[in-house]
């Protein structure tokens, strides 16, 4: 696998009381890579996401990132979520968490928050610098909306969009933070076949044109196998396998824990 390591976890452990939701998991992700995490419900996939993005502070182990634009290895475990986003790790949520009573454009503009700096004083004075910054935010956000084909809804409230559009908007909002990796929690869940194919094209475009790595969780095997270059399988908080889609399909451990004997993929 070519490219630099961009995310590394070392013996990452997350314990809730007596339950080890994640049990010393080592994961390495590379630049511009599309990787997936699969596993049965309760395997610790979303917990892993929450640890990487700082929603949880891991009880053991460390997480490092290496932003390819800066090329400096940094420890991020223990940092607050907003700082981790600022360092270039964006995410979406399993159950859509849009800002429902804000317009579509404003949702994306929020994503620019960490890349702009106007404070209270400049908001009130609205000096030239602030106006310029505001214009840059709007332009950048409009550009992203153009790319995800949501431009026609820009002044709609986010809650009025269809389910598929909301999922896309959530990805667009994450893209606005200028990440080097984006973590998608079940992006294809609840989508029909056509929408899933559109999403696959969209994610490939993210990778090809924007050079952003993707780590995703999904239960749609067709989607995962087609899209990913690497698949990580988790069960009971442990990583049980890692490899290319074809390797994973053959892996007896994975078949036993998750895919099932009879499944034809």
């Amino acid at each position, binding site marked *: 696998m070519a490219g630099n390591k961009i995310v590394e976890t070392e013996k990452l452990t997350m314990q809730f009381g007596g339950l080890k939701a994640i049990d010393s998991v080592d994961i390495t992700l590379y630049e511009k890579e599309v990787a997936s995490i699969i596993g049965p419900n309760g395997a610790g996939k979303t917990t892993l996401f929450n640890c990487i993005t700082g929603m949880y502070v891991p009880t053991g182990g460390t997480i490092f990132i290496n932003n390819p634009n800066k090329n400096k290895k940094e420890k991020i475990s223990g940092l607050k979520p907003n700082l981790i*986003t600022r360092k270039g790790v964006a995410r979406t*949520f399993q159950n859509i968490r*849009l800002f*429902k*009573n804000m*317009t579509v454009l404003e949702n994306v503009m929020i994503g620019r928050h*960490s890349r702009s700096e106007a404070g209270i004083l400049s*908001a009130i004075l609205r000096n030239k610098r602030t106006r310029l910054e505001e214009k840059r935010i709007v332009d950048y956000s409009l550009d992203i909306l153009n790319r995800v084909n949501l431009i026609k809804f820009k002044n709609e409230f986010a809650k009025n969009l269809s389910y598929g559009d909301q999922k896309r908007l959530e990805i667009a909002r994450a893209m606005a933070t200028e990440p080097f990796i984006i973590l998608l929690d079940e992006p294809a869940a609840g989508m029909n076949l056509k929408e899933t194919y559109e999403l696959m094209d969209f994610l490939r475009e993210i990778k090809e044109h924007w050079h952003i790595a993707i780590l995703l969780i999904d239960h749609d095997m067709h989607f995962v196998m087609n899209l990913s270059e690497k698949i990580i399988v988790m069960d009971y908080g442990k990583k049980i396998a890692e490899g290319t889609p074809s390797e994973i399909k053959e892996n007896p451990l994975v078949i036993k824990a998750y895919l099932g004997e009879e499944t034809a993929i």
Partner: protein
Amino acid sequence: MKKNILNSFNHIKHSIIISLWFMFLTFPIIVIKVQPYEKKILWRWDNMILVGVCVFFLSFLWRFYSNSEKEITIPKLRFFESDKFKKISLFFLFVFSLLFPFIFSNYQINIMTTAIMYVVLGLGLNIVVGLAGLLDLGYVAFYAIGAYSYALLNYYFGIGFWLSLPIAAILAALAGVILGFPVLRLRGDYLAIVTLGFGEIIRLVLENWDKFSFGPSGISQISRPSFFGVELSPDLSVTYIYFITLLLVVFTIFMVNRLQNSRIGRAWLALREDEIACQAMGIDKTRTKLRAFALGATWAGMVGVIFAAKTTFINPACFTFMESAIILSIVVLGGMGSIFGVVLGAFILILLPEYLRELGNYRMLAFGASMVLIMVFRPQGLISNIRKIYTEEK
């Protein structure tokens, strides 16, 4: 045609049932009157008929309008939303507010000043509750801090109104941050309880700290604002304070309008909508919350100074929970997050009870009824949250 008649017949039937039901419900309070000294019971049957007829007509009207509403309202709304209408009405409002003190009596000016003060308070609380979504039931504490800052600074050091205004604003903002820190992790009901407690703490401290704040007897003879060093007569002061308050409200609307469509304002909205997603978008939750508390409190501090200067006497009883509740009602009634809504809400909530004084004992009843009616018909507030429309310019 036949259907129409049938429909109106149905309306009449329903209205009759409702009026009968109301007559039954109000029977004990409207009809029976016990006179304990004469040991007599008065049966006021005429009241019952009055209630029945009134309710019948109200109910009928309601039914009639709620059925034909759709066709009537659309063209009207379009006119009200046009820019031309906005500009014209703003201009008239401006001229009217400037001429107001020269047309009306001091009593009217005083009421209007109070209403405008509540507009500013409402706009301040709107930052915390409407924009940032933090339910603050102790907002009156900042109001009290502002008023007491001026009263005490004036009493101990003889500091004037204009210097006290920024000092009180800063002190209130500091108090906002002090309240903000312990409640950073709290949300919803829990936050409401803690802020409620905070409001009471401030009031109780002021009430019991005799040596510092003179306890329940309060502070009197607070000086009125001076006009470039000239002391004004009480009569002129009323007009003067009216204009100061007017200036403050214009200033506030200007600031809040700029804030709510800025990076900070959007962060507040995001915080209100979803705290977790907001953090995932790179927004510092702590700073955003503290900013909301501090900025919201600033306005209350400034209005507090004006209040102290206006009444020239304050005591802790001016700053009970009731005040917080009224300010919160202004925000909720007007529409959370909408400036125009808050202005409208403040005028309704403050002016209505004043002008309903004619009704005597029924004043609060009518007030309550109008609030219930507004909430029935507009549960989202009078003016619902409208967001800025961005147009593409390339």
